[in-house]
């Protein structure tokens, strides 16, 4: 947890530059892992009114905010946790882990067409731990689990 430094427009808090003129509940969503609901809960906990801007916060309020944020799993900690979860699933040989490894949809979506997002994004957490050749091999090796109709879809 670093000391918050105030510039003219941006507030640097926990490694993230927050826009100074934004309402607190909106500015908090700039953190990875904090959405509108979590931001609202943080503001309620610290008694920040709905129209409170970051520039209006006092030093003690900013310290309280830093304290609350540092107790949460956000930013790099959260990314590491998600990656670790996916790697774990792969290592214990689950279906979900295999789908991540193959870069295919995980939640039972169809792959006959679409599935573009999954093919683009899934498995990127495992790519650090495997090469492209390994991913392609994994797809070939597990291709027997794919339905015959969908084989022609795979590159």
């Amino acid at each position, binding site marked *: 947890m670093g000391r918050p430094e105030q510039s003219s427009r941006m507030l640097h808090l926990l490694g993230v530059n927050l826009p100074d003129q934004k309402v607190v509940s909106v500015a908090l969503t700039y953190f990875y892992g904090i959405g509108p609901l979590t931001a609202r809960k943080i503001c*309620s906990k610290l008694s920040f*009114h*709905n*129209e409170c801007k970051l520039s209006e916060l006092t030093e003690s309020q900013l310290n309280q905010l830093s304290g609350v944020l540092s107790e949460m799993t956000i930013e790099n900690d959260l990314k590491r946790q998600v990656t670790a979860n996916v790697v774990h699933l792969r290592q214990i040989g689950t279906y979900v882990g295999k789908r991540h490894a193959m870069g295919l949809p995980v939640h039972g979506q169809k792959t006959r067409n679409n599935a573009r997002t999954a093919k683009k994004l899934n498995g990127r957490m495992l790519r650090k731990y495997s090469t492209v050749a390994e991913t392609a091999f994994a797809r070939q090796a597990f291709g027997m689990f794919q339905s015959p109709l969908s084989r022609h879809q795979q590159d």
Partner: protein
Amino acid sequence: MNCLAQNARLALKTPSYIAAAGARLLTTSLVIAAEKGSNATKPKADRTQSMAFTKKENTTKKVRSGTATSVNMSAANPVYYTNGPKTSLDLLSAETANKARLNTFVQIDDAFLQNTGRGRCPGYLDADFKLFGKPALLYRDLTQTLVDRLAQHSEAVPKRATVLDGLNGCGKSAELLKLASVAATSGHIVIYAMSTLPWVNSSRPYGPGYKSELFVQHELANELLRSVAAVSREALSKVPLGTSVTLGKKTLEAEKTLTDLVDIGMQTPSLAHDVLDQLLAIASKQAIVPVFIALDSVNTLWSNTFYRDQEDVILPANRLRLVRSFLPFFEGEAALAKGWVVGATSYMEGRFMPKSLKAMLNPPPLVPLANPELSYDPKVANPSASLPFDVVKVNRLSSAEAWAMMSFYQKANVVTTPLTEGLVAKKWVYANGNPRQMFAGVTTYF
């Protein structure tokens, strides 16, 4: 020049009709060249400098479109910008509030508006006053009735609180403003909140109270104390505390007055709530100076707020200390020894009008039951007619009031067409006597 020479040669070589067209083209070119030559002697207009509008300097704040220029009215074109008509109006005060002012427009003191609302006005009145050029309101029959009641309640007889209710735009906030203005000039201690919406709409800072379930709003309490001090300093100085009052580390002796008490609240925002509670407690028990408490948008006292507690649960208004200070007066749990407590409802923000309160203020017509025995059945819906406060309905304008309003609009150049009885009657009927709708009817084009 090469082009012109070429055209001339072409004109000589080509057949006659083409030659004629070419000759015309040549002539036109020569004329244009001549004009250009003659214009070179006139000074060019400087289009980089505007006469009336100057651009504001770049600020750190992003300005919305339409606000990037400031108008210098001294350089404005007099054909388009004319000064508004100057109408002289009597200032509304305790002396001028009498039957002689009925159906005339009176002016609210600018200083009073500055002290109570920092220049802002309740409801839609801001735009109206801007159009008129001054804060002017119609002195109605209802206004005179309320002024008479104010004088009656100045006697040392405790009364129930009163709530002004009516349709949107019927003049509730205007009546309350007039009453507060009269009370301020007649020596009352005036505690006037122009709108209680900022108390509940989560636009101002709040925080949990110390060892209390209530939430505090020091800034708002401080502002309220400042307005009380600015409007009623003389009246406050006439009321001694009666007992010694301890606020934080400061102690006020019994001989000190309410002015000293309010000054502490103004200087120390963290003590504002304690000071306000003490002020209300002492002022409501004393009978030296009458007290006038006026809250606009009083319905917010019973609504849910936009604030949330630490568990992210929506706070009802009675969890706010500022609301709790005034709620007992409207629920019959506290009363003034000398004075009057008035509230005005507001339907501008429907989210802060509880359904139960709306039903109590506007009960459905009581239809006699076909089976009289059902009236003894407790399960049969029986709308509650018992309210802890009195309700005064602000009704539609009378014909005389409508005529007075339209006459003033004509003097203020809001209405430019000649005023006839037929026109006023038409506007009055179309608006159903609602002042807001009448104003909209004369100011909108479509």
